[in-house]
């Protein structure tokens, strides 16, 4: 187990951001409260693009901003720009259901997601930002003997990697969540696999926390700057064409989940990815009813409760190629049927909003963090519907890849060529059909 402390220490050490006198603390909050909150300054610099940088990161979501932060902090690369076509966090970073967990099975995935969980646990102190990280537990329910055995296997794999996991029986689940429909004729709840350290984090705060800390280390965050082409010399990418003019760079990192095929296509890459729409929902706010995150094991439905009181839930992909950022009614019905099957009392609350995000569905359901066939071009893509929980580790591992030109030890399995060589990471055992993952 020697790798975890060493790698964490490596990522955690390095430069500390200087927040120009605006370090957030209970003292600064009290001081500003006393003077009418007139002293707050912008959290980060809205930069104008320069003509060249050492590193350009395409995509100002959680992953892109985290990458820029770790490039500056861990590897001392501060001549970095993050280019965002809209405003930071306007894509999937602002459309997910905020769940963090590391309850994976396969060796290529589990240590990576546990690195992410460890980074979540230290994130607020590291960034000096309240990301509302709440380790209230993630519970996967099982409804059959076979499913219990599969969950026991996953829980054992987790514990062998030093990750917390507890297999609960129906009585233990009933004590936690007495309002579930335990004795449904078709899918009675037999128990669940609990990861107590899982939970939720405030997605917008994660984006702004990374943006603020990266900006304080000298990173340029450039908004309303869409990449429209790549500048290529022979087999090397040397910059990008944007709606705000050409920007040269020694290295370019793509971190644009949902649009990876389009941006990769600008460099002539054809990727093992389809873009799909994933919907999510939130109800009106109610008093605390759900203590953690709960997933239904007999249909694709999961739910948690935000600090504001809304029940946040989601389910399956719509299941067809889409860049629309909105879905269709059959999936809404399907998710709500799952909700009613699991916890009938949810029928008493009204849905406040629903929305859709465009996700990169890779052909094996696992991500890609790798070099590309073009020198100077790096790819972070294929996060399917699991990108949010990976934000800190994806940033740390992409930063390592860009800075050192070799994969991070915990992201070695996320190769782009694994589909050609047969080393796919099929966590769910679904095969190469994106709408089944």
């Amino acid at each position: 187990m020697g790798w975890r402390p060493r790698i964490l220490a490596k990522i955690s050490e390095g430069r500390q951001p200087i927040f120009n006198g605006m370090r957030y603390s209970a003292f600064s909050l009290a001081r500003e409260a006393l003077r009418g909150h007139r002293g707050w300054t912008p959290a980060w610099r809205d930069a104008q693009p320069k003509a060249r940088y050492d590193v350009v990161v395409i995509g100002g979501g959680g992953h892109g901003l985290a990458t820029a932060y770790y490039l500056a902090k861990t590897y001392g690369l501060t001549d970095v720009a993050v280019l965002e076509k809209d405003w930071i966090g306007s894509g999937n970073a602002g459309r997910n259901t905020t769940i963090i967990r590391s309850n994976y099975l396969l060796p290529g995935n589990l240590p990576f997601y546990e690195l992410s969980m460890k980074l979540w646990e230290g994130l607020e102190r590291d960034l000096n930002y309240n990301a509302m990280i709440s380790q209230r537990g993630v519970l996967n329910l099982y409804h059959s003997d076979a499913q219990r055995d599969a969950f026991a296997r996953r829980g054992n794999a987790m514990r062998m990697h030093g990750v917390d996991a507890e297999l609960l029986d129906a009585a233990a689940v009933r004590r936690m969540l007495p309002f579930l429909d335990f004795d449904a004729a078709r899918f009675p709840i037999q128990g669940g696999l609990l990861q107590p350290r899982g939970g939720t984090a405030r997605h917008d705060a994660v984006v702004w926390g990374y943006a603020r800390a990266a900006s304080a280390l000298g990173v340029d965050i450039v908004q309303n700057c869409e990449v429209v082409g790549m500048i290529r010399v022979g087999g090397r990418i040397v910059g990008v064409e944007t709606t705000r003019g050409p920007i040269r760079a020694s290295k370019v990192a793509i971190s644009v989940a949902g649009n990876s095929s389009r941006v990769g296509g600008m460099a002539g890459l054809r990727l093992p990815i389809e873009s799909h729409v994933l919907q999510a929902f939130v109800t009106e706010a109610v008093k605390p009813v759900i203590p953690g995150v709960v997933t239904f094991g007999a249909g694709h439905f999961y739910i948690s409760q935000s600090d504001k009181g809304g029940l946040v839930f989601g389910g399956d992909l719509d299941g067809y190629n889409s860049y629309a950022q909105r879905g269709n009614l059959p999936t809404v019905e399907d998710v709500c049927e799952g909700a009613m099957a699991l916890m009938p009392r949810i029928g008493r609350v009204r849905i406040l909003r629903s929305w859709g995000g465009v996700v990169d569905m890779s052909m094996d359901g696992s991500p890609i963090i790798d070099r590309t066939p073009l020198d100077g071009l790096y790819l972070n893509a294929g996060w399917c519907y699991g990108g949010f929980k990976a934000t800190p580790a994806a940033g740390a591992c992409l930063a390592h890849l860009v800075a050192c030109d070799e994969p991070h030890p915990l992201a070695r399995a996320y190769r782009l060529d694994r589909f050609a060589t047969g080393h796919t990471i099929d966590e769910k055992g679904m095969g190469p059909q994106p709408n089944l993952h």
Partner: protein
Amino acid sequence: MRIPCPFCGDRDVSEFAYLGDAGVVRPFPDAADAGERVFESVYLRDNPRGRHAELWYHASGCRGWLRVDRDTATHEVASAVLTRAPSL
């Protein structure tokens, strides 16, 4: 989203099952470069934003295979024609 099935008429998307890009061609297994072509046909996709030719199966209708021309940015369906079952 509704798909105009040539046999059944305009039907809700929930009646259909989606397979994906209609341009995927399964390679001839005896070809010299069959390994490379299988990799491309199984894994690589153009994944365009905009017009996309794709295969849908009218599972809860006539059980015919359709080749649908649809815009992935707007979900607008331009055409749907009956086609052969894809060779999987």
